[in-house]
């Protein structure tokens, strides 16, 4: 296993800039997830680490070795593809050992590795089958097996769960997490699903339009998103946003008003009068009530009941919708005008540029 370092990486196709000034340090054994909406550049970044796409400028180090000019096979990486990419004309065993032949691994050693990987992934009975005779989940395990036998420094996963159905996705996710613990592998994993990111990652890299928005542990991103984009991307359902303005600065703090919220006082330093802000509160942090640091209200339009948690979709004054999580069996009725409250700890403040403003918590 090895660490991975990326310095000032840029990628352009002609005049179109796809990745801008990417910098990343991944220590040995860490599970890092690159997450973001389509087109954010995460797959491109992964392919550049793998050596499948060329670097426009910047450096990539695997295990302290500069790998920019090295072919994929020379970088000691292994990749698991979204569509598994198994060779249809070879059986499972051959699929797994094929690459090893060309990197000079002797036959005995090849057999040993395949047997070991098959045991780890419960593929022993499938070794003589062909890919088209396997189910999606089995194919995915073979693809992972093919990566394992290479004994790489870094594992790369490119949206491996996207082609699986929901139930299979959950079980395979658990398998991948288990594998990480067993192998203590350095893993770079790409997905657009933030649930996968949150559950699998040691650290998450949130990307948007070719730029890294924030890097951090899952819960850090959840509780302290660095900007509006990360705040709205992590967490499902997404955070509610309220447009606001600093009306005046007083002794207790800044008085903040907004069209969809009741005036509140923010104990924040460094805010100027007249500054435009966005207030963010997650659906799970709002509760029915009319006393609290932050208050908002609206008419209930729809209630989605999922069991212990239900989600109320509430129409606000600005015609946008507010989503609130309600716990328990008592749910508001459609048409009710309800007030919701949140504590100061759960109020996120972002400035005009979308950047996080630190509030001194009570």
């Amino acid at each position, binding site marked *: 296993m090895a660490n991975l370092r990326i310095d000032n990486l840029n990628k352009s196709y002609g005049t179109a800039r796809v990745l801008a000034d990417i910098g990343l340090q991944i220590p040995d054994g860490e599970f890092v997830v690159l997450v973001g909406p389509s087109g954010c550049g995460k797959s491109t970044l992964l392919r550049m680490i*793998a050596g499948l796409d060329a670097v426009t400028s910047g450096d990539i180090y695997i295990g302290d070795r500069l790998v920019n000019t090295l072919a*994929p096979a020379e970088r000691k990486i292994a990749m698991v*593809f979204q569509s598994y*990419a198994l*060779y*249809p004309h070879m059986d499972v065993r051959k699929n797994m050992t094929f690459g090893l032949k060309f*990197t000079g691994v002797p036959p005995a050693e090849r057999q040993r590795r395949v047997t070991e990987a098959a045991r780890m992934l419960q593929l022993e009975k499938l070794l003589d089958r062909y890919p*088209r005779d396997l189910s999606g989940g089995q194919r995915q395990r073979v693809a992972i097996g093919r990566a394992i036998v290479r004994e790489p420094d870094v594992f790369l996963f490119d949206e491996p769960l996207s082609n699986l159905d929901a139930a299979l996705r959950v079980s395979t996710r658990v398998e991948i997490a288990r594998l990480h613990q067993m192998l203590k592998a350095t893993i770079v994993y790409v997905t657009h699903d933030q649930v996968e990111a949150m559950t699998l990652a040691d650290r998450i890299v949130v990307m948007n339009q070719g730029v890294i928005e924030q890097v951090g542990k899952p819960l850090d991103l959840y509780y302290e998103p660095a900007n509006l984009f990360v705040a709205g991307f992590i967490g499902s359902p997404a955070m509610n946003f309220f447009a606001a303005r600093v009306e005046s600065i007083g002794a207790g703090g800044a008085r903040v008003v907004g069209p969809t919220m009741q005036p509140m006082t923010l104990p924040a330093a460094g805010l100027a009068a007249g500054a435009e802000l966005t207030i963010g509160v997650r659906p799970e942090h709002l509760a029915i009530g009319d006393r609290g640091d932050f208050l908002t209200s609206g008419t209930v339009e729809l209630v989605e009941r999922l069991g212990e948690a239900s989600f109320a979709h509430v129409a606000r004054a600005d015609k946008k919708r507010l989503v609130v999580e309600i716990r328990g069996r008592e749910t508001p009725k459609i048409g009710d005008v309800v007030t919701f409250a949140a504590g100061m700890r759960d109020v996120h403040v972002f400035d005009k540029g979308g950047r996080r403003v630190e509030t001194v918590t009570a």
Partner: protein
Amino acid sequence: MAEPVSQLVASMPRARMLALMTLFLGPAVAIYTLFSIYPLIATMTLSTYTSDPSGVFTFVGLANFVTLLGDAVWSRPFWNAAYNNLIFFCVHMLVQNPIGIALAGLLSLPGLKLKGFYRTVIFLPTMLSVVIVGFSWNLILSPLWGVAEGALKSVGLGAWFAPWMGLPHTALLTLALISVWQFVGIPMMLIYAALLNIPDELTDAARVDGLGQLRIFFHIKLPLVLPTIGMVSILTFVGNFNAFDLIYSVKGALAGPNFASDILGTFFYRTFFGFQLQVGNPTMGAAVATVMFLIILVGVCLYLFVVQRRLRRYSF
């Protein structure tokens, strides 16, 4: 692949459905049967007859075939033509298809510029009439004009030149190579299309596995287009054993020099329609046509039942 029949269609009254089918299918099936299937059967039937100068036809069973294959006068030119046809086919299989595969492989390399230009240019000869191609090459290779000779001289191979088209032991090969030159575009395009079908992720996985482009071609891409190569081969077979135009337009019906370039197509033409010293013989001609058909049929059946079944392994 085929969707279930629409409920509305299924509930149509039977008579109505039959009327519609006749309307839509009738003309096509009629023309096809009348001018494609029936003539073939008629020819095969005719081959079991013999005719005398007065036009009377007498049934003789397989006698014509016995004559064709065994009789000294008939069988020598027949076997000569059959043997030549086989050589013609082998040259195509050994030269045309590998070159077509190689060109397709080169064209399918990722990031290649000017792909469209190369494709268009290399496919151009296929569009031309065989008459044009044959005659043009005849001129180019002709010692009178000297273009080919000059070209060889300029690379120091002037001693190699000979009037290949006119020499009995090189005429057939030269014509076969000209045919290859013309038709290489077809296997190239078909295999190129098949190569495009291979998902990019497969080549990516191979690159990560450590294979260079050449190895990727031989170990991954080639096995996966084997079904197409099989199809190309059988089409080459059918086409070659049906060939006529090139030999006829360059060498005439006598397929000289000395019948060295005679293939089954020209033999058939001569037998049926006659030429110069030879009188046309419709029944023997029919026999030749029937033998040609049987050869092609055997080849196709062998392909369908032996080769294609094995090739199913390579489908996705």
